[in-house]
């Protein structure tokens, strides 16, 4: 998979993967909402798996691919729990006299 450009050879898969990783890092820093941050983290992970594959570590790539949805699901469950907690605390804080003191 080498593309010859005027003398040297350039491979496409590491190039795309490094582009994805750099853009994902900048996007995780710049976005402020947490769901946007998780989508950008997904974008970064795709590039990371591509970079691992381009150095022929196939077992590490397969294990990373299996473990990556698990971590995403745990992050999303945590964010939903945070949202529920914020809403329920706002609703009940004026009614409970124990928390006012």
């Amino acid at each position, binding site marked *: *998979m*080498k*593309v*010859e450009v005027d003398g040297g050879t350039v*491979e*496409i*898969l590491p*190039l*795309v*993967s490094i*582009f*994805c990783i750099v*853009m994902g890092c*900048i*996007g995780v820093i710049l976005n402020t909402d947490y*769901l*946007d941050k*998780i*989508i950008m983290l*997904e*974008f970064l992970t*795709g*590039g990371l*798996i*591509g970079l691992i*594959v*381009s150095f*022929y570590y*196939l077992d590490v*790539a*397969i294990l990373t*691919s*299996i473990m*990556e*949805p698990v971590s*995403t*699901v745990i992050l*999303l469950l945590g*964010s*939903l729990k945070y*949202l529920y907690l914020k*809403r329920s605390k706002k609703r009940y804080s004026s009614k409970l006299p124990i928390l006012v003191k």
Partner: protein
Amino acid sequence: MDTLVLLIGVISFVVGLRVFLTRNRVQRLLYLCCLNFAIAALIALYIKSPMGGVAAAVYFIGSTLSSNAIAHTIGKVQRLEGRG
């Protein structure tokens, strides 16, 4: 000169830029799906052995699973914010 790999690389660069620049969250998820297709095809074309095919299949199914989880959470958050 391999035209096919160069074409898939150009497509993934364009889609990656559009993931970075779009403001809408649902459209960002659709572009990410196209990027997953392109990366799985590049993995299979880079490693010409059956193990590369297994790696591409596992990567694709895992990324589809996490996209499913993100879309489900977006729907739940929209329903929660629309109601109250």
